[in-house]
């Protein structure tokens, strides 16, 4: 994995006005966003928000009513070497129950002249090596997820698109996946994963893309969405402390005489400033905003 020469920057995923109507239903409505390399982007929304349809449009499986999906500036069908450019694992994609995992991968690999040794490699990667010759009929949900991921990794692609990858994985599998995706993105690659549970991916993603009813609700770094955690300070000397703390990047709200909400400064820094200036503190607490509540508010409630 260590590469002495820096690779070309990974392609960007772009949706430009993507729209899909099924009859009168607007499953995806004028969606425009960009997914950049070097981080994990979470594509979030409640079930039925249009995530899967959007991913399928980006991957050329569903024809948009209008708009385009581009990967590195090309449509998926226009990619010269799709398996080596984009690795995708989608929900509702399946395996022939009578075919072994190895044969499933070998057939895909053959289309791009990927050697069988690479098939062994990815099977080992996802931990299916020992069961690779079993028919997929015998596979559990978690094993299917791993096989789908193995297929996505075949071409060692700079772009990874995974639809609900944590579904069916045990906690150990989820931890492994999180670690794997973090490292994948750290190599400067583009990773887009969808989920309908924000808390499930909160520890994995750097950036979130939230949709509801087929429309983009918010695209922002995760830290911005969660407010970065503000610090609540109670002190009889609020005005003086405010003056001391106010610097670049620090924001202070003072809803009442003795309470400050400080954004952009850590508790240690605030405590130190207070101590050094003899300011009495009654409370110094870091407040995390509840991710799931933020998510539900943004998407207009659970469905």
């Amino acid at each position, binding site marked *: 994995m260590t590469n002495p020469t820096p690779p070309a920057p990974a392609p960007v995923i772009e949706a430009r006005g993507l729209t899909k109507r099924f009859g009168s239903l607007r499953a995806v409505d004028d969606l425009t966003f960009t997914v950049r390399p070097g981080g994990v982007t979470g594509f979030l929304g409640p079930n039925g928000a249009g995530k*899967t*349809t959007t991913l*399928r449009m980006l*991957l*050329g*499986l*569903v*024809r948009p009513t209008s708009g385009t999906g581009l990967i590195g500036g090309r449509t*998926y*069908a226009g*990619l010269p070497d*799709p*398996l080596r450019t*984009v690795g*995708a694992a*989608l929900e*509702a*994609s*399946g*395996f*022939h*129950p*009578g*075919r*072994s995992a190895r*044969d*499933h991968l*070998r*057939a*895909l690999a*053959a*289309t*791009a*002249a990927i050697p069988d040794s690479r098939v062994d490699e990815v099977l080992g990667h996802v931990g299916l090596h020992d069961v690779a010759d079993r028919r997929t009929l015998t596979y559990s949900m978690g094993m299917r997820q791993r096989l789908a991921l193995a*297929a996505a990794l075949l071409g060692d692609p700079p772009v990874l698109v995974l639809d609900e990858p944590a579904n069916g994985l045990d906690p150990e599998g989820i931890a492994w996946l999180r670690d794997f995706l973090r490292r994948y993105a750290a190599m400067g690659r583009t990773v887009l994963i969808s989920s309908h549970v924000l808390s499930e991916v909160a520890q994995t993603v750097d950036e979130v893309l939230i949709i509801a009813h087929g429309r983009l609700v918010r695209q922002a770094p995760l830290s911005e969405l969660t407010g970065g955690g503000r610090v609540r300070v109670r002190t009889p000397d609020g005005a003086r402390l405010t003056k001391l703390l106010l610097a670049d990047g620090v924001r202070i709200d003072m809803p009442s005489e003795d309470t400050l909400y400080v954004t952009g400064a850590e508790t240690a820094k605030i405590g130190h400033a207070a101590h050094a200036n003899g300011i009495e503190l009654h409370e110094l607490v870091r407040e995390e905003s509840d991710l799931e509540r933020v998510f539900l508010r943004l998407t207009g409630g659970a469905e």
Partner: protein
Amino acid sequence: MTRLVRAELLKLRSTNAWWLLLGLALAYCLLATGAFALAGSRGGDSPDLHSATGLGVVYGWVSQAYAFTLILGVLGVTTEYRHMTITATLLAVPRRGRLLLAKLLAYLVAGFVYAVVIVGVTFGFAAAVLSVRGLPVTAPGLDLPQIMLGGVLTITLYAPMGLAVGALVRNQVAAIVGTLIYFWWVETLLIFLLPAVGRWLPGGAAQAMLHLDLASMAGGRGAPGGGLLSWWAGAGVFIGYAALLTALGGRVTMRRDVT
């Protein structure tokens, strides 16, 4: 394109369907051929196996194995939708026209392998049964190489024909039942009762390739050899149907969303 064809053949080989269908086809042909070869020339109403007509039925029956390559072809597309492997397939080969072309070529190859095995085994078996009975294995006026060639062509070409049907009708059960009813009954009846129409249908054209007018042999209206198209016309019409269906199936497949 070679890679894509190889990938399709690998998919075909990696499940049980191909040898199950081949086994069924062989069993069907050997049973039928054996029955004809054993039952003929027994006096009474039994067909005369010294005649070109009688032996024509014994050998010509092999072409009925087309039903199995037809099913093989139908499965080539419908199985992908049934198990949703089509998603992975299209992610690897997003240009659908290329995918369909690769499948067509792969199924031509597979159909040919089937055809050679089925025709070879069946002809060998028929000749063996006839020899054991002390009957001649051929008759004057019977063009065995022609029947063999026609049989191989028919069995081979029905595989891509099935593929095209599968591309049009994704539902596996509907596609299989529908094509079997059509090719086995509707078309056979039409060829038998209305040879003027029937000879222009795929089945009639296939019989022309066999150079074997089964309908008139069985007592249909067409005069022997006269009810069917010429060999070349038959082959042309048959390939025309396969091409037309493929083009139609391709058009439909290209536009269809995969969800």
